[in-house]
């Protein structure tokens, strides 16, 4: 479903963030990306979600190359983003509307969904993520765990085929981490590709089919080689 070939990325000042990354991700599987801080996990996720573009190499999604030119086409960008859901590392940056229910419904409304269906889906995800109690609250007034769940609900409500979670455990207490671990199990489906980054070996061991290690050379380590 996702194919990366010799993918490289460097910032404007020349700092390399990814070096010759080649990998294929298949539908129905759950991948865990692990590696030290600064090895390029978040950059890779940004490229996969079409927020950044490789300096060289190719990224193909369902056979179609994702480029900056393609993402400038509104229709193509909408069609692409509809299929990929991305949970930011810091959920506060991801939540921008006036209430939790508006936050969940935002993406659905942008897809042109009718209000009834939109309300039904919002209810479903409010309930699934245990957010009914705070539905009218402003997302910036929620606790860390609630913010994470709200951002996750907003992403999941769009029912994406690919789900990318950048450190879903970050900033959560033990209870929140246990909840995420259980929830990741529920998210698995033969129709969905899940990709997440974490420093938690517990989550990686429980939730992932495949663990991928990135090293300090900003590339995917060969099997058996870590960091």
């Amino acid at each position, binding site marked *: 479903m996702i194919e990366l070939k010799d993918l490289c990325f460097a910032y404007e000042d020349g700092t390399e963030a990814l070096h010759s990354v080649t990998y294929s991700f298949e539908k129905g599987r759950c991948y865990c990306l692990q590696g030290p801080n600064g090895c390029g996990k978040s950059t890779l996720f940004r490229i996969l*979600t*079409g*927020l950044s573009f490789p300096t060289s190499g190719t990224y193909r999604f369902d056979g179609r190359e994702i480029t900056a030119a393609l993402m400038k086409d*509104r229709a193509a*960008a*909408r069609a692409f*983003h*509809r299929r*990929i*859901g*991305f949970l*930011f590392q*810091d959920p*506060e*940056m*991801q*939540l*921008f*509307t*006036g*209430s939790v229910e*508006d936050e969940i419904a*935002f*993406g659905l*409304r*942008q*897809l*042109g969904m*009718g*209000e009834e269906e*939109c309300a039904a889906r919002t209810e479903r995800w409010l309930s699934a993520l245990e957010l009914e109690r705070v539905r*009218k*609250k*402003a*997302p*910036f*007034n929620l606790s860390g765990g609630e913010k994470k769940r709200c951002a996750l609900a*907003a*992403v999941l409500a*769009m029912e994406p085929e690919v789900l990318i979670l950048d450190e879903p455990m970050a900033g959560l207490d033990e209870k929140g981490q246990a909840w995420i671990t259980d929830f990741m199990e529920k998210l698995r489906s033969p129709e969905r590709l899940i990709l997440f980054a974490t420093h938690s070996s517990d989550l990686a061991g429980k939730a992932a089919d495949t663990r991928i290690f990135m090293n300090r050379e900003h590339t995917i380590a060969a099997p058996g080689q870590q960091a």
Partner: protein
Amino acid sequence: MDFDLILVRLTGRILKDEGRTAGPLAAPGLRIQPVSRLAAAFCCILFCALSRNAVFTGGVLAVLLLRTALLPEDSMRRALGKTVLPVLFTLLITLPAVFTGSPGTMATVTMKVLESVLVLALTGEALTWQETTGALRALHLPGIFVMTLDMTVRGLVILGRYADRVTEAVWLRTVGGRAQSSVRNAGTGGVLGGTFLHSRRIAAATEEAMECRCFDGEYRDGRKTRLHRADALYLLMIPAMAGLFALCERAMH
């Protein structure tokens, strides 16, 4: 504690107040739609601004003060507190009117300012920020405008908290009495600079988050507001106000 810290903390407190999520007037059972409250508040301010009759202005003010008196103590203090500065400022700038022989102007203008601010303060007590922006949407203001308002409040709250945290960190590092003014100024500059950079990060991240959720520059929102019987009764205030306004204006001639 130095002045900068007090200032930033005060801003933070105001912003926290803006981010309130449940108004004390939001009593279940007697729920009037925010759009009705907003429409009535807008008409009240409009009629007061247009009025040339002190009876009308005084009458509306009396009703508003009566409504304020029925509020719980905290809400009353908050609502009246918001009127103090604007009223004092108006008194100050209209003071020359007393010496030029028209003290009535000072009284009328000050009353009008007090009414307008009090109406807004009472609306603010009754509605949360989200309800207010929701009501603006129901009044057919462009969705993108309303969303921008929502996002502005969110940005202000996040930046307020950030500035508060950084100022606290600066204050903790200026241990040993009052810091020299050069150190304090450098600290304040750092807080402002950091807040500015943080605001840019928030803006960029928000844009990306919106893009990820299929926002392509055109905001789509199909929500509709339904009015209930309580709203109809509440909205009767508008023709009543209009009637009183017309009556008072006719009496002038």
